């Protein structure tokens, strides 16, 4: 049974098990591999996307639950035509990523935070940013979020 949802502004139809996590529909059916598989239990955040503007861990949302909703992934965070968002530009300026595997999720989490709260305190940043980075890029993630705030 095909399930319809909007991904990065386009309506798509995925013919798969509705119980399958959204993550695998994005990665395998839609080839949007910027969203990563890390743990499968919603513990690491590597698979973070926006669903109707809210941050969500796509390994723990079923495709069926995403039906009819609007999903945004890292591939659509820029303003199009290769133009990166201010947040992504700050990520480059601060040279944040190391291995980079968790960074799509980190950036999506930071984007969701700033959409809701354009002026978060350090404590609010810590509270919102719960994704795991094994390389330990946290100091630079904090700097990049602050830099994006001052650039906004």
């Amino acid at each position, binding site marked *: 049974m095909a399930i319809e949802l909007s991904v990065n502004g386009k309506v798509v139809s995925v013919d798969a098990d509705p119980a399958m996590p959204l993550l695998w529909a994005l990665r395998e059916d839609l080839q949007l591999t910027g969203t990563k598989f*890390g743990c499968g239990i919603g513990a690491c955040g590597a698979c973070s996307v926006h669903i109707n503007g809210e941050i969500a861990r796509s390994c723990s949302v079923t495709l069926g639950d995403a039906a009819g909703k609007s999903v945004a992934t890292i591939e659509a965070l820029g303003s199009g035509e290769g133009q990166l968002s201010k947040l992504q530009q700050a990520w480059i300026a601060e040279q944040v990523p190391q291995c980079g595997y968790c960074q799509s999720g980190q950036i999506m989490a930071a984007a969701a935070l700033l959409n809701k709260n354009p002026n978060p305190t350090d404590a609010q940043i810590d509270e919102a940013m719960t994704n795991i980075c094994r390389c*330990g890029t946290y100091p630079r993630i904090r700097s990049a979020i602050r830099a994006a705030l001052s650039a906004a």
Partner: protein
Amino acid sequence: MGIKRRAFLIGGAAVVGGGIFALHWMNGSAATKAGKMTAKAGESSFTGWIKIAADDTITLYSPHIDFGQGSHTALAQMLADELDADWAKMRTEAAPAEMAFANSALGKGFILGAKTVPAILTPTVNAAFGAIARYMELQITGGSSAIRATGQAGFRVIGAATREALVATAAKRLGVPETELTTTNSVVTHAKSGKSLRYGELAAEASERSLSTTPTLKTAKDFKYIGKSPDRFDIPAKVDGSAKYGIDFTMPEMRVATIMAAPIRGGKLESVDPAPAMAIKGVEKVVKLDNAVAVIAKGYWAASQGLAALSPKFSDGGNTGMSTASIFAEHDKLRKSGKPENEAGNGDVKLGFATKGAKLLTADFKVPFLHQAMMEPFALTAHYKDGKLDIWGASQSPLGAKMVAAQAAGLSGDDVTFHPMIMGGGFGRRAPQYSEVTGQVAQLAKQLPYPVKLIWSREEDVRQGAYRPQCSAALKAALGADGKIVAWQCDYAQVADAGGEAKLPYDIPNVALNHFTYQTNQTDGFWRSVNSTQHGFYTETFMDELAQAVGVDPLAFRLKHLPKGSRYTRVLEEVAKRSGWGTPLPAGVGRGIALVESFGTIAAEVIEASVREDGSPKVLRAFAVVDCGTTVNPKNAEAQIQGGLIMGLSSAIGEAITVEGGAVVQSNFSDYPILKMEGSPTSIDVHFIESGAPMGGIGEPGTPPATPALINALFAVTGKRHRTLPLAA
């Protein structure tokens, strides 16, 4: 460099491939072969390791994988400096997984082939190749070796030699003496006549020349790129989702597999009924391997559902009695036996401990197995067709992975091609000898008519690790009347290969380091900074206890045992200054200090910490001062130290792999907690001392001092001494 070490290098290569694969670039045949693999029409190869295109683009082939440690950019900086290259046209690519591109090929150009090494590099070559020879046999990324060995002794020399060849070619073409030519930004200029030639115009002819192995190298004052921090090449693709990791690879007709190996290490697959998996939509096949069962499906979800539906029976390899407690009990038994496998030290500890009036102190330390927990689970794609096997994915040694795959699939190395891709972390876990996934995917592909991508679940990743070993140590010291240590004994138990990483930096007249070896049924691997983690913890925690015993400030106590004016004291004094050591702190906050030398680099760290209401530690600010000789890319080096420090804190606070009934208890990030942003330091001040000493590594040395510095800070707050890790246990 002694004869013994040379023999070791030869032996290493011989074991791997049945021959010596030295690339002597003054003898053209191997270089020509290597060059043919990489240089296309219009491109000229120099030594096989770099190529220059007609449009002046210079490409460097790195035997090391860049998994975020920044070596691809830093190696290009080193090459560009000696070559006087135009930075805008520098590129780095992963070297093909072929013998001609093994690290050792680069090293042996000097160590075995060339009789002389540029004088400026003698200390580097001795220090780097001596200490890390074991990493040089293959294309291994490890041992914090890329910059200090491959960069210093390899690409700087290749750059300088290539520049000389370009200048000689230009001199001939312009009919002027070489001494009248200058080079900058990939252009050779003859100031007198105003004529100039681009490297791209000279490369084809210059590449016909035989290159010097002893070119004149620059000194630090002439560096234009080394010591600067150009942006890393790999970062833009990592912020827009376009970077392709091993797990992202796809090809037509590809299937996805997932796997479960015997939960008790050493066990084999006895039986499995494939029917429950085959009943799941999308599942195509259940494959039995010697000690594992794999499910092949249209996609990962179906494969994992299929695997979950199976009830495989595994044998236990006779290991059901193995547990965390039994391992520590065996360690104690060994220590009681008093018969260490290896002994090191100096002086006479018996005499030292018998010093009249000496104060004796003892302390026992325990640390658990640690898991690397790289963020990208193992994922390799393999395709077997017409007798040839192709593999795509990440490895800390593509060449080693190729050999492992060939062996597992019963093929010759010539029939296997490994296509290296970027990796989502490694930290030692992707060393080929422990990457069972390589053999697994090779065996699966061999019996499937289509390409297959094997993805390990996080549960498989956690349970089937190649861990930092579970270790313990009994320390004993005697303090003389002058408040100095007269004897130091460390009876440590762990697997073999403690190596030189147990180095004690302090001047102590009588030292005994006794190594008791015990092998569990778990796989012991490399974990960022390897043995320096546990030894740094033992030594630096115990030093604090000794300082306390004689009522001396921990910093002053350490300085008392170090040579005045040494690199150690400079690093300690600098971190003390930057952290405000000795100045008052808010109530409930303590400071701890630690000093560890690893991989040729000396690092001292100060951690400020307090205790939360629930009793768990709260890390506040952190300070690190590091002497790695010279930093090539300071901004990137800072990131490595910060990340290493956080990994050390994470392990101290919450990480432990425990074993019950021979099997690993933990399964995912839910029970193997990794430090998150909230738990990491509010700031990490990193400072480098550019001592000019032989270059040390940078990827690992930030980790070892973090744990003891935290433990010492907590002692300062609570008066309680933690000797068993993790703190959460």
